[in-house]
């Protein structure tokens, strides 16, 4: 009974075979059952995430959060869902009706679809695709498209501006994210996510901390969460691309964002924290599921921590951070990892780990120095007497954040 999921699957297989169902159809039916169960579990977790999010943000802000409905307010999200289901659904007259409805479906659907390749345990994985990493990127592209559709179909100025900002941000941050994903692929020699997890006796966060950091930052931007939430800056464009959405349609966007955040946490744990790996996970796959979710929720907590700690950054700062800092750093890390790994691949594992870790730390230190010099030059430019105070760089359509804090974000 160490592996209940496969036990049930095999039992179903024998049942169907005894009924005289052909092997092909057996596979198809079991796949459908597997998909429905996985998607259902993802949705239930998603509802639960509403509670987690509200509770954690309350704690960060020294509040209590939902605490009336059920123990620790645990039934609050259920009440939320019932409320959303009973709310009137308004479609604006000028909206493109079909596309307007398609966008939230894509938002939640793609967040669920990502779970198809997440290895929950050594033997519990929807589909051990040999192009798993690129599959994640591809699904990310489709969600980007969903946002453009949402912004355009709403036929609303705020929605369109919000969608453009969001898309510019998502496509920009996709570059460092994918480059940082190339590093685990190189180290594991495979794009299959399960094989990447399997090849991590030493967690990749030790071998490639720079890639882990870049992945964390850029996926935060990919999610459009604070500090990268200029796309829904309440003070200027009200709510961004989902301004016209009401009731359950908005609920789908919200649920999609929360589930996507947890999924990013799960992928981070797969790529850099050893996924389901842990004591006894090989023999008792059920333990692997527990380890995986502990790591995924830890990373989800980190993502929330970042979200509720940093102020929103301006759009020019957002783009600068991406193109002038993260992308070059990611490329440098990729080149360094490829070279070091090739040169030291026959060295003993202790030497190998020290070299990789050392290389990454040296790279981080160089990046720190270069950014410091760059920041000093920029500060001098801003503080030079001829344009002192008059041309204080308040960019159009961006909210005002102090230059000081922005430099801290960039550094």
């Amino acid at each position, binding site marked *: 009974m160490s592996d209940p999921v496969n036990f049930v699957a095999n039992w179903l297989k024998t049942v169907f075979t005894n009924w005289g169902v052909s092997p092909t159809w057996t596979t198809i039916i079991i796949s459908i059952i597997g998909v429905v169960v996985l998607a259902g579990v993802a949705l239930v977790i998603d509802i639960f995430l509403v509670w987690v999010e509200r509770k954690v943000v309350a704690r960060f802000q020294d509040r209590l959060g939902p605490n009336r409905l059920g123990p620790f307010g645990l039934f609050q999200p259920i009440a939320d869902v019932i409320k959303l289901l009973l709310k009137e659904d308004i479609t604006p007259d000028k909206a493109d009706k079909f596309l307007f409805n398609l966008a939230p479906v894509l938002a939640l659907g793609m967040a669920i679809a990502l779970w198809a390749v997440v290895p929950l345990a050594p033997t519990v994985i929807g589909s051990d695709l*040999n*192009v798993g990493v*690129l599959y994640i990127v*591809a699904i990310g*592209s*489709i969600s980007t*498209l969903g946002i*453009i*559709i949402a912004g355009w179909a709403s036929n609303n100025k705020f929605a369109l501006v919000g969608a453009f900002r969001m898309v510019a941000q998502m496509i920009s941050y996709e570059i460092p994210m994918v480059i940082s994903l190339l590093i685990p692929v190189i180290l594991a020699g495979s794009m299959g996510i399960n094989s990447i997890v399997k090849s991590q006796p030493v967690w990749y966060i030790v071998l490639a901390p720079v890639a882990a950091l870049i992945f964390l930052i850029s996926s935060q931007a990919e999610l459009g969460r604070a500090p990268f939430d200029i796309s829904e800056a309440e003070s200027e464009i009200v709510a961004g691309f989902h301004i016209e959405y009401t009731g359950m349609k908005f609920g789908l966007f919200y649920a999609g964002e929360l589930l996507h955040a947890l999924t990013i946490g799960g992928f981070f744990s797969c790529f850099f924290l050893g996924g389901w790996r842990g004591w006894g996970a090989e023999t008792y796959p059920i333990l692997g599921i527990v380890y995986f979710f502990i790591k995924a929720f830890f990373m989800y907590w980190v993502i929330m921590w970042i979200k509720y700690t940093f102020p929103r950054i301006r759009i020019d700062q957002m783009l600068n951070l991406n193109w002038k800092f993260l992308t070059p750093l990611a490329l440098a890390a990729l080149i360094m990892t490829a070279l070091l790994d090739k040169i030291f691949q026959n060295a003993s594992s202790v030497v190998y780990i020290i070299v990789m870790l050392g290389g990454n730390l040296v790279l981080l230190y160089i990046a720190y120095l270069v950014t410091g010099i760059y920041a000093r030059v920029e500060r001098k430019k801003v503080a030079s007497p001829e344009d002192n105070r008059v041309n204080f760089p308040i960019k159009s359509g961006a909210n005002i954040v102090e230059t000081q804090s922005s430099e801290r974000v960039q550094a």
Partner: protein
Amino acid sequence: MTGLQILFLIIAAITLGGALMVVTTRNLIHAALWLILCLFGIAVLFVLLDAGFFAVAQVVIYIGAIAILMIFAIMLTRKVAKDSGSQTNSTWPIAGIVAIVFFGGLVFLFQNWQPIHTLPPTLPQGYNSIEQLGMALVSPDGFLIPFEVASILLLTALIGALVIAWGKNK
């Protein structure tokens, strides 16, 4: 008729329908979205052809980048996109005839070619075509020169596009 064949026919019908909508729809944004549907159908066909890498690459490059670039370009030139008049040339019937004749000619040529009725050979066990592709791309006996030239091509395209679009203003 096997299940795979039915699947192929459904996908092919959706893709060709999407392609027809691309070339006939008035609203350019809609045309771009139909194009995306069509490209997605082609990605599914790549899966049927055992080229999973190209399926995801198709989605990443065509849908994730090229289609979005097109939508941005449509947005930039929106005064035209709103143009409610006819979206086709006056010579469109000729174009239609040319296309149909071309299609007929291609199908006629296929008939005289023997290997067209081959069925796919089974791939060897454990054959990793992505790995083979990666090896071929950087081995000097393989496609090293095209690989590096592709890089230079992309670089030239980037610089050229930036210069063409914004050259004078900076």
